């Protein structure tokens, strides 16, 4: 058997943002490769740098260090053999469907008649015949993404990159489009040699791809590399499928570490500051209540996604928060309520607030915030002051989001308050002993 040639190789790639003291690692020490004929998914929670990695692989971004090899040649610019299908379609709104596809051909020097011919044929292939002269705004999301695929196919890419291609679509369109993509790919009547898809949808990944590269965050790194060796078509209710999904959830959620590492350090101290997961307290309470109704107070995370009809990305954030606060534990893709979590569920609103308050006080980030406020004059600090302090640990946008979350949680716990009219964060009276 002949050895399948390697198409793409990523060698110890790092990407850093900012400069000097405020330097943040987006992705760290990434090594992986793709062979011809592979359909690979990059999966991970939001903020793990999977989109950044995709942009490095296609040559849109230059890595801070490390190299990307394409067919053994170092990439020094946008990869001419790769193309991207974008999450928000990235169609030119002022060009008709046909012109959008033709544009990709035009810049490659294809003469006018041939351009038209090929564009029409491609639109035909994705089922858009009759819509050639429509503008993107006249189409539904699913149809717009079909134009995105047709445009990508027009340049006959060897490496087709998909950046969350179905996540801006409604459920039915997404399902239909996935089927069509799989058909094009498995039938082999497109010149594409390999597909790399970024997604946070675990089920989608397991339905489509042959191999899943799992990424974790803080900083973005590769956690696992799994094969999905199920034959197509794959049935979601089949035990093999469910086993794979469980395995993936187990890999993604609950990589519980030693408590000190898990909790991180306070901002400004040596060590990594753990970012607060971006969830609402009401949603967290909802998750715990749902768990309490389960037999044995435990549930399979994947089943929860199905039952609660929530985005898997969001549910993973919720489970992360539940575990961080000690309300639940996670093992092998299952989440179970702790005694504390049970107490929380049974408690009245006021007691819930108290429990929540005692739990978040343990988080280094909150301890730090409460300390700062406690030492300040009149127990009050400007948002901007806290933000610039946090910017030593996080990128400015992320720092702002972190304060948002902290204020949100702190308000629920009645620990801190925020006055939007003067932009000041202050301690609640009970805290000002």
């Amino acid at each position, binding site marked *: 058997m002949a050895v399948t040639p390697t198409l793409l190789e990523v060698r110890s790639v790092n990407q850093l943002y900012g400069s000097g003291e405020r330097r943040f690692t987006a992705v760290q020490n990434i090594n992986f490769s793709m062979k011809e004929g592979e359909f690979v998914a990059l999966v991970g929670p939001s903020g793990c740098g999977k989109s950044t990695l995709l*942009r490095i692989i296609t040559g849109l971004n*230059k890595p801070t260090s490390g190299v990307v090899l394409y067919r053994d040649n170092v990439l*020094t610019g*946008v990869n001419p053999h790769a193309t*991207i299908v974008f999450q928000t379609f990235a169609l030119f709104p*002022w060009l008709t469907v046909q012109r959008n596809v033709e544009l990709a051909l035009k810049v490659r*020097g294809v003469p006018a008649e041939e351009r038209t011919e090929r564009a029409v044929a491609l639109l035909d292939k994705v089922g858009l015949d009759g819509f050639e002269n429509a503008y993107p705004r006249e189409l539904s999301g699913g149809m717009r993404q079909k134009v995105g695929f047709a445009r990508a196919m027009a340049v006959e890419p060897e490496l087709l990159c998909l950046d969350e291609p179905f996540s801006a679509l409604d459920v039915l369109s997404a399902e239909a489009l996935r089927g069509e993509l799989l058909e094009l790919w498995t039938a082999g009547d497109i010149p594409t040699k390999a597909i790399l898809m970024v997604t946070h949808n675990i089920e989608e990944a397991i339905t489509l791809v042959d191999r899943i590269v799992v990424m974790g965050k803080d900083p973005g790194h590769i956690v696992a590399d799994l094969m999905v060796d199920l034959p197509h078509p794959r049935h979601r209710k089949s035990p093999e499928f469910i086993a794979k999904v469980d395995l993936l959830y187990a890999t993604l959620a609950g990589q519980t570490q030693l408590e000190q590492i898990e909790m991180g350090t306070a901002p400004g101290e040596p060590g990594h500051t753990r970012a607060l997961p971006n969830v609402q307290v009401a949603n967290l309470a909802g998750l715990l209540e749902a768990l309490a109704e389960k037999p044995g107070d435990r549930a399979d995370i994947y089943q929860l996604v199905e039952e609660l009809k929530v985005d898997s990305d969001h549910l993973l954030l919720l489970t992360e928060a539940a575990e961080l606060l000690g309300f639940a534990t996670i093992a092998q893709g299952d989440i179970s309520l702790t005694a504390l979590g049970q107490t929380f569920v049974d408690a009245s609103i006021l007691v819930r607030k108290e429990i929540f308050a005692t739990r978040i006080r343990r988080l280094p980030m909150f301890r730090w915030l409460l300390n700062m406020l406690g030492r300040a004059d009149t127990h009050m600090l400007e948002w901007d002051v806290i933000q610039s302090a946090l910017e030593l640990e996080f990128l400015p946008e992320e720092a702002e989001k972190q304060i948002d979350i902290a204020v949100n949680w702190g308000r629920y716990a009645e620990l801190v308050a925020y006055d939007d009219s003067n932009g000041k964060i202050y301690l609640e009276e009970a805290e000002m002993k």
Partner: protein
Amino acid sequence: MASDPALFRTNVPQRRATFADGIILLTLGVLFYAGLSLARSIVRPPVAVEQISLAPGALPLYTLYSVSRMLAAYILALAFTLSYGRLAAYNRRAEKVLLPLLDVLQSVPILSFLPVVLLSLTAVMPQTIAAELASVVLIFTSQAWNMTFAWYQSLTTIPKELREASAIFRLNTWMRFKTLELPFAAIPLIWNSMMSWAGGWFFLMAAEIFSVGQESFKLPGLGAYLQTAALQGDFKALGWGLGILIFVIVIMDQWVWRPLLAWADRFKLEMVESDNPPASWFYDLMRNARIAQWLERRIAAPLLEWVDATLIRRRQMEPFVEIAEDRPGASFYLATVIGAGILIYGGYRTGLTLIQLPVNDWLTILGGVLATMLRVFISLVIAMLWTIPVGYAIGSNPRLAGWLQPVVQIVASLPATALFPLLVAALASLYGGLNLSAVLLMLMGTQWYLLFNIIAGAAAIPQDLKYTSALLGVRGWERWRTLILPALFPFIITGAITASGGAWNASIVAEYLQAGGKTLSVTGIGSVIASATAGGELQLLLASTLSMILTVVLINRLIWRRLYRIAEERFRME
């Protein structure tokens, strides 16, 4: 007029005042100083002043001259806009200098450019050509800045994924300009071009007749004609001139701007169809005309295809799209050192000149700044008093807006300066007549910015909020206080910022008037600048110009920027 609030995002400096701001102010001062010194050192023969004929028969030619001047200035402004804005948007290091520079440039009173430009031009070319060029450059300075800001802002707000798509599909610089940047910026560029033309007409009067020291210049043109007619009290000629001016403005509106807007509607980024797109009878006519279609298909399309093909073959795309933070080379440092040297020496000389200015003159300048500030304030208050209710009425009533808006737009582009001499004549007998007419001129030049913004704001008030307040029985003043004023606040601020900038600039023509050999003036920084220009007192001109720039920049930074931030953060409805 489409009610598109995004068009009215203004050019308020969103950055903190930086070191660069100081450097730029200094540089500008030095440049002025250098231009003035150059001017003083050259001895010129006296020039023959061209006579302006007031016969109506002269008007067609004069109009042609004026329109050509405006067009030349506009083309210059467009070229400046495209290159300057692009450099500022794509080069981080250039951006740090270019943006504050633009901030300052738009606060430089237009007439202060005149002596520097004119006198340095006469140094290298015959006087008639120099005067002609100076006039074009003057009009240019009233047109360029807002367009540049609009272009820069568009470039920096192009969605990231569209940018990435054009890189991944290998669009080179030309194709990116043609298919991404220009379409994306088309609508703001057209609106700002309209504003620029209105501004150009406003200052045309000052750009065709001017005197610097002993020399006066009259360029044949509509502005000179109107000025002369007004000064000689020839009402018949004035009527003819105004008639022609209105005619030209209406023609431009119907044959150029409206068709352009109707055409540019396709460049709206929104992914939904708009309810009533801008319409133009002329555009519809052209689109359906056989000859236009034939021209498009047989000439324009193949030509464009050829241009595209040639440029695609010739120009490769740049390797990485992200804006590189490249390290400056040795030549950069060398240039910095040399530049700093020149700047320090120039700054020293400029400072020396400023110090030599008598204390009395400084007091005049200070008093002038305060007086003008008061006038700007009064004109803003008056403008708000009528534009808020009227703008709300128009904006919240689509039927009223339908026929009133085009009228308002044409009225708004009539240059108040053309009427100014008349106004002065009418009010001169009253006590404080010139003071009154100065405020009126500022008002007439600037209230439209407020009106347009308020109309846009009123149209953007969400219907459900209106229903809610009706259901709650909120009426009268209470309704204004809780619903309308907060909703309009960002638009009022945006309009007021543009209006106040315009008012400062208008003070130069509003506070000082030479009529039939006598000079009318009131206390104000504008009149200090205008009289220093006319009297050739270059030292005073330098000091007063720099003072005005400093004042305007400070007001922008300290007051408008804060208000704008509050408006954006607390009152913007998304």
